[in-house]
């Protein structure tokens, strides 16, 4: 596949994942669409091109690890896992129901493909760094630990403890991705509590910083490629993104952080993403709602 083609395929995958996310949240009438749609592009590139994992051997020790520190983006995490082949996409529609493994916020207890249970903001980066230190000590030299954080999330002091630690320890196998969509629940980040100049801050904490447009696949691709080159320090990828990206009528409105779309809204969103807007058909197209992991769970644990 040539480079252009490859990016086009990734682009299409990202759109499909956006559709999954919206269908999951609409179906559950519960969940957070805003962040998943802003992070879908770059996380699709990560999961489908860069993340070293093996669907047939999901607990391969030397794998790369992905931590969704902003756990409210759970729908995106689950959709990535399903589309990457860890379990059947139809199962996504059990999201947030009592019997499902797809808990409101990512739960390793219920779904062992989740590396770390999250939901309380500001915790993932320290855990990811712990994994990075562990991987180094175990001699898993190729393993990279990727951690996704919201920009609002970085207001938690606990993030800055992790940032300080990783900078201090020069943990070069740690990659932080910031979903820099400028929005959080109570408004735009600069109004709620300013984060800028984030790149400057991180550099002062001894991180390498790579900035990219989080919706430009070439920039995203370059950013991850560069991040793979070890730099003697941890790497932060600042992805400039737009909340609800892909659905222009809803973009960049903080109110969409955590509101499930009604059926009418969901139909508009699907159309704007470029899909047919028949919700029932769309749900049916995801397949039946069995979990059906690539490898039976008993064999895995």
């Amino acid at each position, binding site marked *: 596949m040539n480079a252009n083609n490859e990016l086009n395929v990734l682009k299409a995958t990202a759109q499909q994942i956006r559709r999954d996310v919206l269908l999951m949240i609409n179906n559950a009438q*519960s969940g957070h669409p805003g962040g998943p749609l802003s992070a879908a592009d770059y996380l699709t590139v990560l999961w489908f091109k860069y993340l070293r994992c093996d669907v047939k051997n999901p607990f391969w020790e030397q794998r790369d690890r992905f931590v969704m520190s902003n756990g409210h983006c759970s729908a995106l995490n689950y959709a990535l896992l399903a589309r990457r082949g860890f379990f059947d996409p139809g199962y996504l529609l059990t999201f947030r129901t009592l019997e499902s493994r*797809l808990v*409101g*916020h990512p739960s390793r207890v219920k779904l062992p493909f989740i590396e770390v249970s999250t*939901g309380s903001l500001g915790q993932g980066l320290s855990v990811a760094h712990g994994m990075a230190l562990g991987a180094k000590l175990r001699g898993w030299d190729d393993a990279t630990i990727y951690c996704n954080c919201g920009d609002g999330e970085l207001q*938690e*002091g606990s993030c800055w403890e992790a940032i300080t630690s990783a900078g201090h320890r020069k943990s070069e196998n740690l990659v932080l991705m910031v979903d820099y969509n400028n929005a959080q*629940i*109570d408004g735009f980040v600069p109004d709620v*509590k300013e984060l800028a100049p984030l790149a400057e801050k991180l550099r002062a904490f001894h991180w390498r910083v790579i900035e990219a447009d989080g919706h430009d696949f070439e920039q995203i691709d370059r950013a991850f490629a560069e991040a793979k080159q070890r730099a003697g320090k941890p790497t932060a990828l600042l992805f400039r993104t737009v909340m609800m990206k892909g659905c222009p009528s809803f973009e960049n409105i903080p109110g969409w952080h955590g509101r499930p779309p009604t059926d009418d809204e969901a139909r508009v969103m699907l159309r704007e993403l470029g899909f047919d807007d028949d919700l029932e058909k769309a749900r049916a197209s995801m397949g039946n709602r069995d979990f059906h992991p690539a490898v039976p769970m008993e064999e895995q644990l």
Partner: protein
Amino acid sequence: MKTPQLQSVLPSKFWKMELTREGYGRTLVELGHENSRVVVLDADLSQSTLTKYFAAEFPDRFFEMGISEQDMMNTAAGLSLTGYIPFLSSYAVFLTSRSLDQLRNTVDYTRLNVKVAAAHGGISVGRDGPSHQSMEDLSNTLVLPNMTVVVPADEPQAEAVTRWAADYVGPVYFRLGREKVPTITDGESSFEHGKAQVVIEGEDGTIIACGLMVSEAIKAAELLATEGIFPRVINVATLKPLDTNAIDAAAQQTGAIVTAEEHSIYGGLGSVVARHIAESSHRVPMRIVGIPDIYLTSGSPEELLEVAGLTAKNIAMKLKEVIKAK
């Protein structure tokens, strides 16, 4: 002990459903008008905690702290030290863990005049899952020596507690819920600090409940009435200081106790009542209805309450157990 009338409680089929956080948010606005020393803080959840009403009306006295619960707690402490009466809000689970050190060492130790209004208490939070459900907040605050801990049962009581908290000098923790709950108390008289309310008179045993579970207790009493069993139902809105008189009277007069709370069986209402009973001269059988010692998962509030056994049916069953054990 004076006891309200049984007839003041409507049968459950007539209950109106309202949000405790709505009562909180609206009352804050009234307080804002009445008292210029009332200020409000939130940590990026004003849309849920409903401090957004106050924010809209009094932007200069509203402090949006961003996602920084520790900073919010201590900023409130600082504001109280310059004469303000800060109310602060976020979710119960975060306020009593992420910012517990601040709550303990800065606010509680020095008895600062800070009001912690915790939204989304309990498991009726529902689909967000265990990371957002709070089963330990009462335990984590009851153990603080200077804290007043209150769980309003419904919207009017949440209003009354908010209003009371603004007058009371000292730290207060009170818990609000995510979901609408039945209105069972009435406005004016619905809260008295440190006093439990007998919401239904009865002699066959006592259900001591708080929060959401008060209405389940009333429903349990309705169920039991069909079997000729007439328990007392007490709403212990103030868990600390505990109205031990009401508990002593219940033990003496009804001889059997069931507690009911939307909280872990560790360290909450059941625990403090059990401790009181165990150290007293009463020898009454007792059962605790609370969240068993597990994490729940996502689900509708009703599903989760059912899974945890926080239902009228379970309360009624336990009451029959203790009556048998009298």
